């Protein structure tokens, strides 16, 4: 019997796995996708929010501020990109200026440091492309940006190195109570476990409802985004928000941790929990709303658009608790924004809950540090020359747009929880994430995957697992 089974290897599940792997406890992580970070965690604003949005006293407020405080240290420990660039909530109507003060006050109650109101003159100096209508803004110096893929993957990898057992392509189909815990039924057989952590994102209600009579309902709230080329990455220097509304924080404009410009999201409640399609209306809305806070966004430089789903729950707060009628089953549900920011704190909170319940002891041999994929761009010319001499694959550029070498792709495939698909390689190395959007490098990455992954041929290579095969046969095979 496994001690703890975590359902979902998104940013919450992976954070829980990592924090729990500090203790002497057996951990199993079930992920229905072919890779970690393949749901909500891969498609969001990638912001480390300061924490002034959530209502004081909520879990959201507490964990947001805690998560934000942990981010810098964690990013160094686990080697993922985090840049503290600050954020601005921009007011474009002088009659609404009072709302900035409300936010400021709320932020102070939540314990956010360094908040202040900046008037137009200073605002324009900070952000020359700010809208002509902008009259003032709330400045939060502690806000930042992260690479959500690398953060999620880093936590999962580190958990795996510390003994957590990840089962990918494994979907939970049912849960039964058994003596001392639960039997988790999956498409790959059954797992017996003492504890369950339900970190299933937009599907957390389905998992919860398998064990509890007190039903939960998660509404997928779709957000559409546009991503612009790196040539547009300096259009703004901090994350620019509009004043928040009923459906959330509105459309933001921000640089990304890799130097692109990201604009979005919309907020539309939908039915389909896999409904990550973009729409004409949604993309048009992003264009229209972004121009309220930032002017002259170079939309000719858009390289891709995408949509993510927030796991919205009616209580409008994170639900992190042992379920009343299902002991040893812990929900980690309703983790919508600021979930990414909060995840490090969520991991600690749930790990400590389980520690206290099970009386766990710390491992002596916990490995806290994780080295990310070596980025040759960060080396000096000399070091790079030495590296290529030792490993010639680092001299071979595969992705021209992002200048990613074969060496990095090999590392991505062969490290713990390594990449098994084009998207897996992309999220770990950025190969295919540039302006040509994998047009040039995808056949080459496919070749490398087919060569390096045991039992994988060109025919088996997928974009993102399942039926997402890229090649359907050989030429003339049906003639």
């Amino acid at each position, binding site marked *: 019997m496994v001690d703890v089974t975590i359902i979902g290897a998104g940013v919450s599940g992976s954070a829980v796995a990592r924090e729990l792997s500090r203790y002497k406890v057996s951990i199993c992580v079930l992920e229905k996708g072919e890779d970690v970070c393949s749901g909500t965690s891969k498609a969001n604003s990638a912001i480390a929010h300061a924490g002034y949005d959530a209502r004081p006293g909520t879990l959201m407020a507490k964990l947001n501020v805690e998560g934000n405080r942990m981010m810098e240290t964690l990013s160094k420990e686990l080697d993922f990109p985090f840049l503290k660039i600050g954020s601005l909530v921009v007011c474009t109507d002088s009659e609404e200026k009072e709302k900035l003060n409300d936010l400021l006050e709320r932020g102070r109650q939540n314990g956010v440091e360094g908040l202040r109101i900046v008037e137009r003159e200073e605002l324009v100096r900070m952000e020359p492309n700010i809208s002509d209508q902008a009259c003032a803004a709330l400045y939060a110096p502690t806000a930042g940006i992260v690479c959500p893929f690398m953060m999620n993957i880093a936590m999962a990898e580190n958990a795996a190195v510390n003994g957590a057992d990840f089962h990918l392509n494994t979907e939970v189909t049912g849960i039964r109570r058994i003596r001392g815990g639960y039997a988790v039924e999956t498409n790959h057989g059954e797992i017996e476990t003492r504890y369950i952590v339900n970190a299933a994102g937009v599907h957390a209600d389905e998992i919860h409802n398998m064990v509890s009579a007190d039903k939960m309902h998660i509404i997928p709230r779709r957000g559409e985004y546009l991503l612009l080329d790196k040539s547009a990455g300096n259009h703004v220097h901090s994350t620019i928000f509009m004043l928040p509304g009923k459906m959330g924080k509105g459309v933001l404009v921000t640089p990304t941790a890799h130097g692109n410009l990201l604009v979005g999201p919309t907020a539309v409640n939908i039915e389909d929990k896999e409904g990550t399609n973009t729409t004409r209306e949604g993309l048009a809305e992003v264009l229209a709303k972004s121009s309220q806070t930032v002017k002259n966004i170079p939309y000719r430089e*858009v*390289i*891709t658009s995408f949509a993510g789903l927030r796991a919205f729950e009616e209580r409008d707060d994170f639900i992190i608790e042992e379920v009343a009628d299902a002991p040893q089953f812990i929900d980690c549900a309703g983790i919508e924004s600021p979930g990414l920011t909060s995840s490090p704190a969520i991991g600690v909170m749930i790990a400590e809950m389980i520690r206290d319940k099970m009386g766990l002891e710390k491992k002596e041999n916990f490995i806290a540090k994780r080295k990310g994929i070596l980025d040759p761009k960060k080396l000096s010319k000399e070091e790079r*020359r030495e590296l290529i001499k030792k490993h010639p694959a680092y001299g071979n550029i595969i992705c021209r747009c992002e200048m990613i070498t074969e060496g990095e792709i090999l590392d991505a495939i062969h490290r713990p929880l390594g990449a098994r698909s084009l998207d897996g390689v992309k999220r770990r190395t950025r190969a295919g994430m540039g302006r040509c*959007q994998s047009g*040039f490098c995808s056949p080459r990455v496919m070749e490398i995957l087919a060569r390096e992954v045991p039992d994988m041929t060109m025919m088996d290579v997928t974009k993102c*697992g399942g039926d*997402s095969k890229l090649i359907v*046969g*050989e030429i003339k095979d049906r003639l």
Partner: protein
Amino acid sequence: MAEKYDIVIIGGGPAGLAAAAAAYDAGAGKILILERDRMLGGILNQCIHNGFGLHTFNEELTGPEYADRFIRKVEERKIEYKLNTMVMNMTADRTITAMNREDGMFDIEAGAVILAMGCRERPRGALNIPGYRPAGIFTAGTAQRLVNMEGFMPGREVVILGSGDIGLIMARRMTLEGAKVKVVAELMPYSGGLKRNIVQCLDDFGIPLKLSTTVVDIEGKERVEGVTLAKVDGSGKPIPGTEEHYTCDTLLLSVGLIPENDLSRQMGVEMSPVTRGPVVNESLETNLPGVFACGNVLHVHDLVDFVSEEAGIAGRNAAEYVKTGRGAGKESGIPVIAKDGVRYTVPSSIRPEFMNDRLVIRFRVGGVYRNCYISAYIGSERKIHKKCRIVAPGEMQQVILQKKDIEAAGSVENVTVCLEQE
């Protein structure tokens, strides 16, 4: 220590090869071609259809055959080249940092540089096509590589968006390899490809071409399952009620080519917002002395023959620059103005003293024009007035100016290329 070359050519495709051979023949000594792919020839290697070289060789060659003619020229002249080599950085004083597996990272100092990096395809994102993001969406060129170079089928039932030449060629290729190509949709009211490709690649195979039509939705969460097309109005907006659904597993995109100028921009080459290639003078020299450009990196061509011809000019001028420093310090010339239907010209300025006896000015028009005249003015005097039954954006046009006419005109303010009704 950085190794020194007279001329370094960035890119070993048709432009780079022709430029190298011409530079050699014009007396340049130490020439080096840097090619990022595993062989010389560039994109021609995956263009296994015929129709290349009619102007140059009076023959219809396949892409690899055409490339081979020029690769031989390079080999015969023993011009040095490095394969699998990526240029990482270039500076305005022509120091090049490149990298490959064998040599690691290394610097080269070049007397002259010829930019010949070609172009790349516009991806889906540039069009903001809504829908899911499943497997099965390929640019036409990626599909061409998979089919022609690697022998794989990227799909069975295909819809193609965009009627650029690669899209048209791939409609035929996919059909010949056993796929069903259901339709080619084109956003504009005219095709972006050559007339002969529409006839030979679509009409001959009964593949419908739908103009003023675009993709408004892509279905399929893992692999493409279908697309929805709709007619568009004059401003390119879909017209409600005109939607048509197609079941397919593949969407190929042939929605335009963009000159690959990341390196040029990095080194400070001035770019044209219209061609998205460098601004050049009559010698095909950029604003940076000793840095020349030719082929699709300069402006996207229809025919490789013209790429070779243009590259020859760049090669000869680069050789001249290295030998004599010709033109250094004399950056300004007579501007060539594109107007009235003409979108741009290459070159966009002329220094008469460095002009050959005749100068080819190439350009594209902005729309379809019937029974019009292509005119060129030197100053206010009309020197060329050529009747055309039809001109379209898909076909590059040219006018040829005579050096004697420019000299005879004395000091003129500009040269103008335009379309006229009479």
